[in-house]
């Protein structure tokens, strides 16, 4: 029982983590309509910048603003120099341009920080593990991630669905010209939103640092899963990304944890293992294929 509880908590945490990564992407990809493959690069920039400052100052918490600032500034620079010219273009041009950005950023990091993964520190207060209820040990840092994810979710939901900024960004994604003709400086708005998306990517990168490896190319590893979350949730829906992240996190975790065991009850051990492993390792893709076959636009498609 404790194990089930713990696994669900794990799934929740993993899901929130995925959401944290997907949040910025939804904003840029889902709402602004820009396929930004370089989102992973912003995530990497945040992780490296924050980690570096944390190492220099010896404080996890000083690394945080550095990560946010570095990612946001990089995001603003990318927007001004590259992405701004691509809003009106085909998605495919965006794919090529942001792919080029990935190559560029990865190599810049190599030049700046070397090829070796770097050491990240954990905030003192959140190191180790605590006993939540008797028998249930849990790393408090993961609780911190859950909290951060929930905070971001609420904030973004409010921003996009309840404020004029959100409305204008959504309006702009379908008809930029018209928004401008009604007197709104959409370019400024988009720059700001892009910066915000970048900042969230930086936050995710820095938060992920102590759990994962901070290394060149870390962004691309996570990019696919992030896109999966965005698409399952329904492109353009913050709520969808949140729900999809959590569902994916829990399903994935529980599949891995319990499927082979369950299968072993109905078939021979090795076969059950092989099948269980097979299914769970294709887990997120299977889930996505299933969701899309039943709901071709994802769980919370915009406009329905």
């Amino acid at each position, binding site marked *: 029982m404790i*194990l089930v509880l*713990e*696994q669900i908590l*794990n*799934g929740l*945490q*993993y899901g929130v*983590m995925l959401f944290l990564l997907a949040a910025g992407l939804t904003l840029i990809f889902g709402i602004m309509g820009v396929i930004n493959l370089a989102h992973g690069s912003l995530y990497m920039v945040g992780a490296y910048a924050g980690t570096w400052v944390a190492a220099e100052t010896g404080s996890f918490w000083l690394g945080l603003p550095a990560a946010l600032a570095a990612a946001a500034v990089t995001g603003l620079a990318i927007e001004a120099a590259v992405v701004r010219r691509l809003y009106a273009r085909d998605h495919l041009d965006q794919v090529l341009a942001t792919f080029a950005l990935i190559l560029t950023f*990865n*190599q810049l990091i*190599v030049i700046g920080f*070397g*090829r*070796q*993964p*770097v*050491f*990240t*520190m*954990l905030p003192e207060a959140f*190191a*180790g*593990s605590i006993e939540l209820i008797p028998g249930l*040990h849990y*790393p408090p*840092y*993961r609780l911190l991630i859950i909290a951060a994810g929930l905070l971001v979710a609420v904030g973004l939901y409010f921003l996009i669905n309840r404020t004029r900024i959100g409305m204008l960004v959504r309006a702009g994604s379908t008809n930029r010209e018209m928004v401008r003709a009604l007197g709104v400086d959409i370019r400024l708005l988009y720059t700001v939103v892009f910066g915000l998306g970048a900042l969230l990517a930086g936050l995710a990168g820095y938060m992920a640092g*102590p*759990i*994962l*490896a*901070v*290394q*060149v*190319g*870390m962004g691309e*590893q*996570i990019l*696919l*899963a992030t896109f999966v979350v965005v698409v399952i949730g329904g492109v353009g829906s913050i709520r969808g990304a949140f729900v999809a992240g959590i569902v994916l996190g829990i399903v994935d*975790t*529980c599949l*891995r*944890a319990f499927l082979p065991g369950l299968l072993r009850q109905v078939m021979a051990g090795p076969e059950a*293992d092989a099948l269980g*492993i*097979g299914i*769970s*390792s294709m*887990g997120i893709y299977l889930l996505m294929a299933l969701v899309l076959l039943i709901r071709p636009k994802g769980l919370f498609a915009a406009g329905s």
Partner: protein
Amino acid sequence: QDPLKIGMITTLSGPAGYLGQDIRDGMLLAIEMEGGKLGGVPVELVVEDDGLKPGNGRQIAEKFMNDDGMKLLTGIVFSNVAGATVPDIVDNGAIYISPNAGPSNLAGSECHPNYFVVSWQNDALHEAAGAAAKQLGFKNAFVLAPNYQAGKDAITGFKRTFGGEIAGEIYTQLDQTDFASEMAQIRAANPEVVFQFHPGGLGIAFLKQYAQAGLIGQIPMVLSEPSTDAVVLGAVGEAAIGIHATAHWNRDFDNAANAEFVKAWDEKYGRPITYYGSQGYDTARLIASALAKTGGLDDIDAFREAVRAADFESVRGDFKFGPNQHPVHDWYLLDIVAGPDGKPMAVTKEKLLDDYGDAYADQCKM
């Protein structure tokens, strides 16, 4: 006289770039220590990045051999690049000496007189870990590896020499970065020891999360070499302290060749040495030993014989080639302890396997 060109195809980009970089730097170091020569022959190491793409590796090999007339190639880090590249090299009559990748197909039925491996055969890495767990007296183990061939081979290799009971066996996803679920399962199974094989960044993530789950002091872990190179230890930090590691080389090996190597590396690069660096260095020293005998590559047959003799002082101590021209060498048990600065470092504890070859030598008919 123009220097002899040696072609190096290696992986420098992407997350695994540091592997190729260290191999290259190890080789360059050996060349520099001899004043731009190997075995008295002036050499030039021509390095190109394969980007971890088999097709690119093949392309580079083609250029090295046909356009630049190179007859000696080396450097490939990954097995799949080797698979696409090595057969073509050896068919062309050139010699390939691997400083890292040692896939089983090339060790067994596809072995070739022109193909040498300096590092190890892939499976041996994990057989050493199994031997270590047995040596340490653990009776039951929980094993984890990614769900792909190398992962399955790792677990098979571990089991082959461990011989104890398996408390649990989990195959993780190939690109999985979050292992919380596995931590919970390990805790629930409460084994005597954990063996896991996750290359590169995944291994770093696994170790960090193992520590954060509070398992590091509770359940010991035995690891094979790729999971505990100096870069991984540096990235994981304190969380790695207390782990049992296995290796065919470690910084503290007490032999003259190694002392010289370590000193030179520290002076030149100042960053931690990985065993990839030592393999690069050994490869260069092996080439040097052969060149010293033949004076060049004009007589390929003589050169091949000279390489096969492995007449050099390896930084890992004993070294000779088995029948499939893969190494026969010793494996050691290491402890990860806190260094003087509090950061983890690997200390050699004892020899595990003596003159150990690999399981594929029988299948090789040369």
